[in-house]
């Protein structure tokens, strides 16, 4: 079975993004599932960045190391990733003499660690030294004369080649692809796809790819892998897309009927809004267009002055009848705290898509984390329930984005949809989402409301029919209020109104199906249970498979809805296991604390990661075995640059 990792690194802005995007398409055309993790610094141009691309037949949902092949387009990449190399290291022979100390963009801490390792192995602090070390370790080091291949490319292209970075990346990537036995034609097609319509860029890059393939064929035939077999999805029946987590949430929101999106730019959330902006005027399906007599839909996307405005504006739009959402990350959601409570008390349907990044404070803006769970659950003062859902992968994110919009309107509440940088920025292949099972449910809406309207009428299920501003006279206030939305502090009514608001969440807890809240993967009778959420899913699914092959039967309990929390089910699963290990991407083990709060079950073992990097499959496998062998209570993961 093919399970391959292709890693390519270079300076931020130096073409790595294009290279990674093309490589993803290559492997898709080759018939595989792909998962591309991007890592980069909080820097515009010049620091190190890389793409880790996982390629599998059935499921690619998490990064892994070691990489079958590491393509290093500059010296810093060689120094940064030589320990990632599984089989091949492709490097530029032009930088062999480069000394690690001459690289100013590189972190001094990483430099120190690398030098220590090079010293221990008796090799100099140069690229050459690293290559020697890799040779000693039996890795296949593949030196590429980038400049001379570039020259040939320019000569053959016959145009003034000024997209130098991209050509270099194409050459490096092409050498890498040829080494693992991928046909050139797939790369040519991928270049055309990625640079669609930009003929000026396509041609030199195709030539660069050809030049690189020729060179690899002539020089590396002895170490070449044999032809990579085609994957199962060479000619997929359904259209296939390649999307980031940000893209897929945007798609979900459009499918889910979003009509107003507000945002203040922030990493790693902004790309979602930018993508929505790009498609703010979109076509309806021919069938819908015919039924509705309307060809297009439109989303008003507003870049606001801050996140406070963003949430308040979305609330305003929702009161007037539009499905509304905002999208942000930690610093932004902190500013939204007060408006969150406002949406809660006036029962305004609104979705907050919260992309977690490394905190606290500005923290590590471009790095992953799962450290905003407690914020999502408890931010804002007062008795303030809300719906909190966390997606574990791109596909979940798509459907969750739609469900979040439904739940917001159905239960007239803010819904916080949690995602992570690891998903937001990861590129994933996806079959065109099936919308046949998707339902748009706007909840109780009074279309012929009396004037004035008892917006907060007491009901059995706590949900009062809603009427939009403009259809009648409706009153809202951030103060406690009576059934007509008029300020009221009567103690007896206060109990009723507060209870009504809480009742909605009991209703939601009953109505929302268990499969939207939690999933148990693997053998339900396994005695060892991993508990995780969000992007842990990808690594955990692979890990339980690998462990099974090694004779260790483990299942994975994937938590999706944190409020309302599926307490009984979770407790029953955890109590059945003999060993329970919590796996998550934060330092406080926040989900473990939430599990204890809602179920009384204390998860005895924790595997946590808060380096800002995603959890790699192999480190999870190793750490689970470590916990099983030692009984350690806590393992802190640290793999990945």
């Amino acid at each position, binding site marked *: 079975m093919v399970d391959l990792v292709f890693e390519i690194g270079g300076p931020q802005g130096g073409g790595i993004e294009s290279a990674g995007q093309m490589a993803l398409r290559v492997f898709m055309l080759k018939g595989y599932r792909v998962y591309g993790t991007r890592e980069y610094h909080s820097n515009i141009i010049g620091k190190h960045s890389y793409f880790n691309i996982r390629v599998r037949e059935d499921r690619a949902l998490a990064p892994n190391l070691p990489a079958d092949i590491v393509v290093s387009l500059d010296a810093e990449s060689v120094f940064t990733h030589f320990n990632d190399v599984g089989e091949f290291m492709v490097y530029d022979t032009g930088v062999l003499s480069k000394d690690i100390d001459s690289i100013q963009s590189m972190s001094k801490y990483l430099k120190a660690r690398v030098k220590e390792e090079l010293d221990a192995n008796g090799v100099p602090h140069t690229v050459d030294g690293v290559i020697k070390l890799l040779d000693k370790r039996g890795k296949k080091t593949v030196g590429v004369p980038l400049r001379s291949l570039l020259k040939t490319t320019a000569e053959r292209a016959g145009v003034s080649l000024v997209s130098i970075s991209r050509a270099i990346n194409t050459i490096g990537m092409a050498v890498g692809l040829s080494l693992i036995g991928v046909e050139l034609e797939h790369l040519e097609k991928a270049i055309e796809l990625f640079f669609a319509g930009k003929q000026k860029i396509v041609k030199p890059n195709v030539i660069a790819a050809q030049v690189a393939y020729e060179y690899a064929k002539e020089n590396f035939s002895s170490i070449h892998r044999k032809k990579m077999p085609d994957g199962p999805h060479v000619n997929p029946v359904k*259209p296939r897309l390649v999307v980031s987590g940000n893209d897929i949430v945007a798609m979900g929101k459009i499918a889910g009927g979003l009509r107003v999106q507000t945002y203040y730019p922030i990493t790693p959330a902004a790309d979602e809004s930018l993508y929505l902006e790009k498609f703010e005027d979109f076509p309806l399906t021919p069938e819908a267009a015919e039924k509705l007599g309307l060809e297009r839909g439109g989303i008003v996307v507003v870049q606001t002055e801050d996140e406070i405005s963003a949430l308040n504006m979305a609330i305003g739009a929702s009161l007037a009848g539009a499905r509304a959402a905002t999208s942000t990350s930690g610093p932004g959601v902190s500013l939204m705290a007060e408006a969150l409570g406002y949406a809660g008390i006036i029962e305004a349907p609104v979705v907050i898509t919260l992309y977690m990044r490394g905190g606290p404070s500005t923290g590590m803006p471009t790095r992953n984390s799962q450290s905003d769970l407690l914020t999502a659950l408890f931010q804002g003062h007062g008795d303030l329930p809300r719906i909190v859902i966390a997606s574990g992968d791109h596909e979940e994110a798509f459907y969750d984005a739609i469900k979040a919009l439904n739940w917001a309107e159905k239960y007239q509440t803010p819904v916080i949809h949690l995602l992570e940088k690891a998903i937001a920025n990861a590129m994933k292949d996806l079959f065109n989402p099936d919308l046949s099972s998707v339902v748009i449910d706007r909840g109780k809406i009074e279309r012929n409301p009396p004037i004035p309207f008892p917006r907060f009428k007491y009901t059995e299920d706590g949900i009062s029919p809603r009427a939009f501003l403009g259809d009648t006279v409706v009153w809202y206030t951030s103060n406690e209020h009576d059934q007509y939305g008029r300020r009221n502090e009567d103690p007896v009514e206060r109990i009723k109104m507060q209870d009504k608001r809480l009742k909605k969440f009991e209703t939601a807890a009953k109505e929302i199906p268990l499969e939207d809240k939690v999933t148990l993967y693997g053998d339900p009778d396994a005695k060892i249970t991993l508990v995780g959420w969000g992007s842990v899913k990808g690594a955990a699914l692979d890990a339980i498979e690998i462990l099974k092959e090694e004779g260790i039967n483990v299942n994975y309990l994937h938590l999706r809805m944190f409020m309302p929390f599926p307490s009984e089910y979770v407790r029953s699963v955890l109590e059945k296991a003999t060993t329970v290990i919590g796996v998550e991407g934060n330092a406080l083990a926040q989900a473990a604390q939430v599990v204890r709060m809602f179920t009384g079950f204390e998860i005895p073992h924790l595997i946590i990661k808060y380096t800002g990097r995603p959890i790699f499959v192999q480190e999870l496998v190793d750490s689970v075995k470590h916990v099983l062998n030692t009984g350690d209570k806590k393992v802190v993961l640290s793999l990945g640059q």
Partner: protein
Amino acid sequence: MASEKVRYMADTWKDWCPGCGNYGIITAVEMALKELGIPPHKAVDVGGIGCSGKLPEFLAINGVHTLHGRPIPVATGIKLARPELTVLISAGDGDTLGIGAAHFVAAGRRNVDITLLLHDNGVYGLTKGQASPTLGLFIKTKALSKPNINSPVNPILLALASGYTFIARGYAYHVKQLKEIIKAAIQHKGTALVDILQPCPTYNNVYTKEWYEQRIYYLDEEENWNPVVEKPEELEKKMEQTIAKALEWEERIPLGILFQDKTKPEYFERLKIRIPFIEDIPPYKQPIDVNGKPIVDVAQIFVDKLVI
């Protein structure tokens, strides 16, 4: 809607202090809506937090009482979703120029068709009379134990600098004149500011009824006063005269329309460049399903992501 019996004032008890300028303001609002014939269910008053923010509670039109400082974004959201509504904001000087100043500035930049009634009383009424952003430097009201050591912000100048296309000033007790100004503000297509000088007899014993009435005068009584920018090339001159008027304070205080720019496109005009049909089929009006089913196909929209 039965037109004769239309009520704009609610039967809730107004709990402002006796003598509060807000009584004048709410009456002017009521009269303006009535005279413009805007039915209560097509009008929304969005309040901040403060004595001023209570207006929606006392009116019988749609009322959205929000958070301290946040009525502008909420009102903007309402208007963007459903532009047919007449959207008013009742907010204090603390709401708009203190905690919500970022929104005050941003509103000018967007020029959404909303009307901001700034209840300018120089104090934080609802929290016991602390200095607001419009209280003058070294002024000591009785409510303050020491003189104010912050300089005031000039709402007219800030609005002008922020791009407001309608800037006026009214006086809370001159209900008839104030009503006319509010009507003009509502009828203006774009963001309109009405800075309403509002005596707060409880906490502001400096900017009193008497103090104001010795100083105020109406610009439209002046010969040749024309605040309207009809053509872009008039902008600079009109701004200059507005600045001069905005700077008058200690001796004389001008009331009326200080500035109106008819050349700048309202927000929906700008949105239409992006989404041509958005004013005709605004967000609230757009269908999002057919019998509960989505009306889009992902692969049909996001062709840039297809790999085939």
